[in-house]
């Protein structure tokens, strides 16, 4: 068992962070120069943390698998970034943002962490604006905000449909400034194949240079994982196709607890699968649901083109089931409802795995220009991919894996259960509970990177100042490199018949069917068996062409899929353990009479932090969630 | 500092300025040439004489020669440098859409340069006394040249190519000098077109008129 001490500061909610900052230890500027930090991932959290740590004076080594840090998948976030600025005078404040997140997360997040991220949200906007992020503005020159993700205040800052790219470029520019200053060294095109732990502390990594195939050792006083989520476990997801869980998984295997791995957000509005070689499901911004109406035919066998189906034969199922929120119900509710309709045989499109998102009425009411103004770029993108003109006929959409609320367990300082190993952004579990509110992923990633980690990490590093630069020749590095090399050799020597991606696709199907939007005991147990079988098959029938000492994209894939196969097993185990429904985790056994999610606070008000236990069942550690400042309520969107 | 002064953009800046200066000179030259259309050789010869002897013009002349030199030398240097930037060429011709004639500036420019050299041998060097002939009677020399069909065809071809060169050059110079935006660029492109048609046409009609009228 691990001791899960969240180290939450005493005191009232709104004073915790201030108290923490007043009490935590600092590192003398002259000593920072002697300390090395390894940072993995260059998205909003990683690039933000790297630049901030560089600004503080630490020596930072940054790794990413892309050819440039500017390509990390934060780049694809569309909708926006939240902050409690209350620029619209609509009654927003830090508490309200905190409360919306806690409630949106279905009371499965840690109060203190969530309040803190709401607290730093304003600073994030200030910083990005100063960095030159071109957020949308009003005519008076002030920043514009919009209402997003079903909340009642307008707190989402945005840059048209590409807030993620603009924020990422801001973060990338501050990273570049530190590279020029010599405080940050960038190592692009590297896969992280192991975390090195010496005397119980994270001290380095084993990386593979993706161009030369060289296995490299890098040491540091602390290691920070900013590696994002693991949604690609479903194969089809809104993530970049190379997004992976390998570094986080290696951390888990080296002793970092993995929290709530089964909490995965499925995004309701994505482009459905169109062909057998499709590699991803592109997200269409949720904002489309503000004006688009979702429907399927009332009659299963109605194969008429959408426009030929008259009003009385259409089932606007969200409006029917949720008269108050209608098409704007939270993501998990909308996703499940779509799956339910399609599973019942009402789906549209070639595969029957899609529902209509119709703008006919909005265009009639507001005019085509108004709709084009709001969603022009999205309609264009949809047309590029599918060839369908959504001004003329409805879009077809379907849910896809999107964001993982689960991740490495971290305490209030964002440190995992391995001392000196940190996890920030989507890679950790801390702020979104069982479901994430729209536009809060960018906020959390940036907040963690710029304003939280650079404060909390000092508290640990202040104890490391006497440790000289860590040599990479120790037994632990030898051992780690050896096992990495052996694994690569193994991949290359199986010489079976199937490419890594075919296993990945099959794994994704299992996870989607049994550990996706709806889960039940029987299905999950079946999935455990299926995943175990697939894993066995993988290790006996994998085919990786080429060699290790070379750029070998198939070898990269093999490593990622091997880790996904193990992670999937943990996700299913976690989903099996949590017999309640909460947020995005829907257990069919735990639902109300109307088919809504039913939380069981008496039994499951805890964070499930899984501990690696070799080939045996992982050990479940529970961090009880105490709600001292909010009252637990049931979500209702009726 | 050297790197900044001799950056690629600085070179382009000099080329653009030089080019614009040459663009100013062309209509002056055309104005004098149009006097060839008169039956009386006096005005043309007088103008040529004035251009050859007036001190201020002489100063401008030196500037003009230097400008041509800079424009040509820089143009060639930059072009040669650029040619080496794609050591492995595309197997399929690059079909990226480009503005008209812009890809052929070195060739149209080269043609104009060749014409310029011939032109220098026919007139300018005579004035300097480098070749035989009477610099006081350019009028009759011009008529003599225009009576040779081969020369006139070469003359026309060169002026058509000059037109191509000019069409891109005017707008491009403004762009290089940073004088372009959504409002003015279309206007400048319009002026480029008018200039690029009018000036070469002005030169080209002279032999035609001489043939038809005399």
């Amino acid at each position, binding site marked *: 068992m691990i001791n899960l001490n969240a180290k939450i500061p005493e005191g009232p909610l709104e004073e915790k962070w201030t108290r923490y900052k007043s009490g935590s230890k600092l590192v003398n500027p002259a000593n920072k120069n002697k300390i090395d930090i390894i940072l993995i991932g260059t998205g909003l959290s990683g690039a933000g943390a790297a630049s901030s740590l560089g600004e503080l004076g630490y020596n930072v080594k940054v790794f990413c698998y*892309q050819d*440039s840090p*500017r*390509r990390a*998948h934060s*780049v694809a976030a569309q909708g926006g970034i939240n902050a409690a*600025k209350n620029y619209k005078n609509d009654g927003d404040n830090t508490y309200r943002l905190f409360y919306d997140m806690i409630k949106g997360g279905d009371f499965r997040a840690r109060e203190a962490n969530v309040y803190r991220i709401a607290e730093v949200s304003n600073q994030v906007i*200030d*910083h990005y*604006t*100063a960095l*030159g992020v*071109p*957020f949308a*503005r009003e*005519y*008076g*020159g002030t920043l514009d905000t919009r209402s997003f993700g079903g909340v009642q205040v307008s707190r989402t800052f945005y*840059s048209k449909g590409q807030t993620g790219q603009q924020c990422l470029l801001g973060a*990338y*520019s*501050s990273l*570049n400034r530190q590279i*020029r200053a010599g405080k940050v060294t960038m190592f692009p095109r590297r896969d992280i194949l192991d975390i090195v732990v010496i005397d119980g502390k994270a001290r380095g990594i084993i990386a593979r240079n993706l161009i030369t195939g060289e296995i490299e050792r890098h040491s540091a006083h602390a290691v920070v994982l900013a590696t994002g989520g693991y949604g690609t476990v479903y194969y089809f997801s809104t993530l*970049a*196709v190379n997004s992976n869980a390998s570094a986080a998984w290696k951390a888990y295997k080296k002793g970092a607890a993995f929290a709530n791995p089964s909490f995965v957000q499925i995004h309701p509005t994505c482009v459905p699968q169109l*062909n057998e*070689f499709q*590699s991803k499901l592109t997200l269409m911004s949720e904002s489309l649901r503000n004006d688009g109406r979702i429907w399927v035919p009332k009659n299963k066998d109605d194969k008429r083109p959408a426009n030929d189906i008259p009003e009385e034969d259409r089932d606007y199922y969200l409006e029917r089931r949720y008269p108050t929120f209608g098409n704007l119900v939270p993501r998990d509710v909308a996703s499940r409802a779509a799956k339910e309709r399609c599973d019942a045989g009402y789906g549209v499109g070639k595969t029957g795995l899609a529902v209509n998102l119709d703008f006919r009425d909005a265009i009639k009411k507001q005019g085509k220009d108004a709709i084009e103004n709001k969603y022009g770029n999205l309609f264009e*993108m949809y047309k590029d*991919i*599918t060839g369908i003109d959504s001004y003329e006929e409805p879009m077809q959409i379907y849910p896809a894996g999107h964001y993982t609320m689960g991740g490495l367990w971290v305490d209030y300082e964002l440190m995992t259960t391995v001392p000196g190993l940190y996890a920030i952004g989507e890679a950790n579990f801390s702020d979104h509970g069982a479901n994430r509110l729209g536009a809060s992923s960018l906020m959390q990633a940036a907040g963690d990177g710029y304003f939280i980690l650079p404060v909390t990490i000092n508290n640990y590093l202040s104890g490391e100042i006497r440790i000289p630069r860590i040599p990479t020749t120790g037994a632990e590095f030898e051992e780690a490199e050896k096992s990495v090399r052996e694994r690569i050799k193994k991949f290359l020597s199986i010489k079976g018949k199937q*490419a890594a*991606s075919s296993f990945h696709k099959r794994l994704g199907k299992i996870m989607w069917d049994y550990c996706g939007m709806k889960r039940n005991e029987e299905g999950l147990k079946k999935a455990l068996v299926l995943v175990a079988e697939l894993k066995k098959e993988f290790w006996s029938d994998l*085919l990786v*062409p080429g060699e290790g000492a*070379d750029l070998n994209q198939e070898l990269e894939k093999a490593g990622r899929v091997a880790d996904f196969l193990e992670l999937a097993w943990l996700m299913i185990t976690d989903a099996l353990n949590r017999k309640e429904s909460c947020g995005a985790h829907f257990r069919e056994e735990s639902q109300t009479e109307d088919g809504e999610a039913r939380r069981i606070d008496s039994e499951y008000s805890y964070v499930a932090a899984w501990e690696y236990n070799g080939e045996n069942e992982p050990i479940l550690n529970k961090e009880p969630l105490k709600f001292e400042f909010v009252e637990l309520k049931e979500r209702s969107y009726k | 500092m050297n*790197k*900044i002064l001799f*950056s690629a*953009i600085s070179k*382009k800046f000099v080329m653009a300025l030089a080019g614009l200066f040459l663009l100013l000179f062309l209509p002056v030259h055309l104005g004098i040439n149009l006097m060839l259309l008169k039956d009386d050789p006096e005005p043309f010869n007088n103008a040529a004489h004035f251009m050859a002897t007036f001190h201020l013009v002489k100063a401008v002349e030196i500037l003009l020669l230097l400008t041509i030199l800079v424009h040509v030398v820089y143009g060639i240097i930059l072009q040669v440098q*650029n040619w080496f*930037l794609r050591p*492995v060429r*595309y*197997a*399929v011709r*690059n079909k*990226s859409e480009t*503005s008209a004639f*812009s*890809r052929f*500036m070195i060739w149209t420019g080269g043609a104009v340069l060749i014409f310029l050299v011939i032109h220098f041998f026919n007139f300018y060097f005579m004035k300097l006394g480098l070749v035989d002939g009477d610099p006081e009677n350019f009028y009759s020399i011009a008529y003599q040249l225009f009576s040779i069909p081969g020369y006139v065809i070469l003359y026309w071809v060169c002026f058509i190519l000059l037109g191509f060169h000019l069409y891109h050059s005017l*707008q*491009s110079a*403004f*762009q290089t000098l*940073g004088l372009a935006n*959504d409002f003015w660029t279309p206007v400048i492109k319009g002026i480029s077109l008018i200039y690029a048609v009018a000036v070469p046409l002005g030169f080209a009609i002279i032999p035609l008129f001489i043939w038809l009228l005399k």
Partner: protein
Amino acid sequence: MKLRLKIWRQKNAKTKGAFAFYDLDGVSPDMSFLEMLDSLNKKLIEEGKDPIAFDHDCREGICGSCGMFINGYPHGPVPGLTTCLLSMRYFKDGEKIVIEPWRAKPFPVIKDLIVDRSAFDKIQIAGGFISVTAGAASEANSILVRKKKSDEAFDSAICIGCGACVAACKNASAMLFVSAKISQFALLPQGRPEAKERVRAMIVEMDKQGFGTCSNTGACEAQCPKKIKLTNIARLNREYYSAF
């Protein structure tokens, strides 16, 4: 759909490459160009051959990883699309498709269709930032920006750094890329204080990386998947001259 593919194969930066020919059957018009290559790779792997290496990641046209020279066009013949969003609908059954890597001296080939674009990073490291330390920023609304300027800055900021402009340019010039970066900062008041240092540093680095000069042919603008405008280059020039 059936396709006849002619693809550049090159083992690594040191070896000489050559074209290889592949016949590919079973291509669906719903596929993206990269998915078409995925299907070819699957076939190659199953035949025990080395698959074609190409850069790709987000597959939704925003990360800028992918890019190849397709039948004479960077990112293929359809304007405004990255290779990953280029649908096979735009190709005919039986069509011959020639696929080459970006060709430019500053973008050396790493393997097959993958080129090294780190020169772009280096230009931005030289000065593509606003020097503000985390924590030093003032309240966001204390900086007022005219909406028109802000929108213009956004239009420049949408550059995804794919390198199509360099690939399209007859001079392998990076002016469109650099100008987009310069413009974003130049148009915003936040970027003004160090505008001069920025443009000088980035131009010197651009030259050092060996990119060509701008001949104003407009090929970059025509091929830019994000439709970055040529007027950015004029602005870059302006910024540069006023930096002395």
